[in-house]
């Protein structure tokens, strides 16, 4: 059983090693692509096992829980692993077109595969300290990927990204230390009962707030998001797409895991804070986006705004809201990575990402325009695309709780999202090019454009499929939410399983 859980982590790691050895050969990029395909296969096998059994767990090195390190996958973990593999594959294809050879020779694919392994590990681990280790694997890979290729902008962005993320990691690490001191365990399933039985519930709440801040920085919630718009517009587009899709979502996942499994003793306090944090995140993100005129900066602020919806799903803490949160998480990764891909291709055509300096893309690249409209309208929540269902579930959950203000802000932010998306549409696609030329990718060979448009089309197709045929996805999210709210199955599987 355990290999099912290990493979989605081991495959990208092995790929990273091989890709590093072959980094200056043309074969390196194909090794990375093959590794991403295999990761997707391994994730699909994991998903099949989870669909079959509900929750699966494995004890590493045959040390029984709670003493050893446990890998565990419930519905939420499984879907996150699959979506990570899909994003990884899309990025691996896109990178074939975008990443120049000199960057490949620096070990780009090795770093990229390590990042995927780190993200997958964070989704699968059932051990708090192990979660910290996976965060660090992910962080060191992301640091290097952010500054790879050099340039003043990337170095400047790198400094800010590294500094703030390291501080948040240390807060998280101190929280682990204190929580271990109170409960005497690091296993998440074991910790649930230990936290509930702890004498000093006040101290538990303090530790919960440390985790909220630590993960909040990773997830880029208000008021801890400042590293994100300072850095996400500088790296290669393939990198910013995978960052935008996955990295902040690891923070959201960790929040969802900790605040449904462990910190549920004082929901009235912790989750009330989360509601306000979510609302402010949604609103400040979308207002920040409205002030920007750069393709990627607008998208970066929209990540923040959308993160608010996901944490709101957690904060409302009803089955419907969590279901909406999980659905939103999955939908958002697909859509947001895709929009960054589109931004990269738009730059190939028009030569810039500053909306004031580009235009005319609708005339010269109608296919790209069509492929932009799908994720953009999905992000804004137009029916029948995936974003509509995600927003619908969250708003409905807020309405059921009679939280009118929350509902109002959710809908208002959706409206303002449309404003930003139509701004990109109007300035990049409809407006004639300011230089009076028809933008064409004359600098890039057709192979490059093809490698970049395939993942965009693939992810757009997924958005449409989820939009027109949401039933199985909604049902899946419902089961995931049920498992989150009642983790008995999770706990017994982890603590009872024999290696």
């Amino acid at each position, binding site marked *: 059983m355990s290999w099912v859980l290990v493979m989605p982590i081991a495959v990208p790691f092995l790929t990273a090693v091989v890709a590093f050895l072959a980094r200056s050969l043309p074969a390196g990029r194909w090794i990375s692509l093959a590794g991403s395909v295999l990761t997707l296969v391994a994730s699909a096998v994991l998903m099949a096992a989870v669909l079959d059994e509900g929750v699966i767990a494995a004890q590493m090195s045959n040390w029984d829980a709670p003493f050893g390190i446990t890998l565990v996958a419930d519905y939420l973990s499984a879907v996150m692993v699959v979506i990570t593999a899909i994003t990884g594959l899309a990025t691996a294809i896109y990178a074939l077109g975008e990443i120049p050879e000199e960057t490949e020779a620096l070990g780009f694919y090795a770093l990229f595969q390590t990042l995927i392994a780190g993200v997958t590990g964070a989704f699968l681990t059932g051990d708090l300290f192990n979660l910290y280790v996976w965060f660090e694997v992910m962080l060191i890979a992301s640091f290097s990927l952010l500054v790879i290729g050099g340039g003043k902008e990337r170095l400047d962005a790198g400094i800010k990204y590294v500094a703030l993320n390291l501080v948040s990691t240390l807060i998280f690490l101190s929280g*682990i230390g204190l929580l271990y001191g109170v409960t005497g365990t690091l296993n998440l399933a074991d910790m649930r009962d230990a936290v509930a039985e702890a004498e000093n519930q006040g101290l538990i709440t303090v530790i919960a707030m440390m985790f909220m801040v630590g993960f909040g920085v990773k997830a880029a919630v208000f008021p801890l998001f400042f590293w994100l718009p300072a850095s996400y517009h500088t790296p290669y587009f393939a990198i910013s797409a995978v960052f935008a899709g996955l990295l902040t979502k690891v923070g959201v996942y960790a929040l969802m895991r900790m605040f449904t499994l462990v910190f549920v003793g004082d929901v009235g306090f912790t989750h009330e804070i989360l509601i306000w944090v979510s609302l402010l995140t949604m609103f400040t993100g979308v207002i920040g986006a409205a002030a920007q005129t750069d393709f990627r900066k607008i998208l970066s602020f929209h990540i923040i705004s959308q993160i608010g919806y996901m944490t709101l799903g957690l904060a409302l803490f009803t089955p419907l809201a969590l279901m909406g949160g999980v659905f939103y998480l999955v939908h958002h990764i697909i859509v947001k990575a895709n929009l960054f891909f589109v931004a990269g291709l738009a730059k190939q055509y028009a030569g810039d990402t500053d909306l004031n300096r580009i235009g005319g893309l609708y005339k010269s690249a109608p296919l790209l325009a069509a492929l932009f409209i799908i994720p953009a309208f999905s992000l804004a929540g137009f029916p029948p695309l995936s974003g509509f269902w995600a927003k619908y579930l969250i708003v409905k959950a807020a309405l059921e709780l009679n939280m009118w203000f929350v509902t109002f802000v959710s809908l208002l932010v959706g409206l303002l999202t449309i404003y930003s998306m139509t701004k990109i549409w109007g300035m990049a696609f409809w407006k004639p090019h300011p230089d009076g030329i028809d933008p064409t990718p004359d600098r890039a060979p057709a192979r490059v454009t093809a490698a970049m448009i395939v993942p965009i089309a693939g992810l757009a197709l997924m958005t449409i499929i989820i939009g027109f045929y949401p039933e199985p996805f909604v049902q899946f999210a419902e089961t995931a939410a049920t498992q989150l709210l009642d983790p008995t199955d999770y706990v017994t599987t982890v603590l009872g399983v024999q290696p």
Partner: protein
Amino acid sequence: MEALTAIVIGALTAAAVYLMLARNFMRFLFGLVLLSNAANLTIFASGRMTKGAPALVPYGEDAPLGVVGNALPQALVLTAIVIGFGLLAFTLALAFEAYRRLRSVDTDEMRYAEPKEEATK
């Protein structure tokens, strides 16, 4: 012993915050080192500071005999130190490269990835 450690952790954190509030990125880095050590000490102290023998299992036994120290926090701290060391090495290299290219360690002057001044007004 715990009280003394707690005071040390508090002092380290205070010094770290003071250093990190500086505009000079090197001071920020030194603050990060101190904060990292404060976090490590927190984990170490959480394992309870008791006088005990090393947690070694004698030959032929299944478990250690008598009272032994808690080995887990030491393993955790060791892992955290190694990871922190790697990250610090990376960050130092990054800071050096940034200094070489941007000719400054003053974070107020590092605005290459930020909006231009006239655009913000």
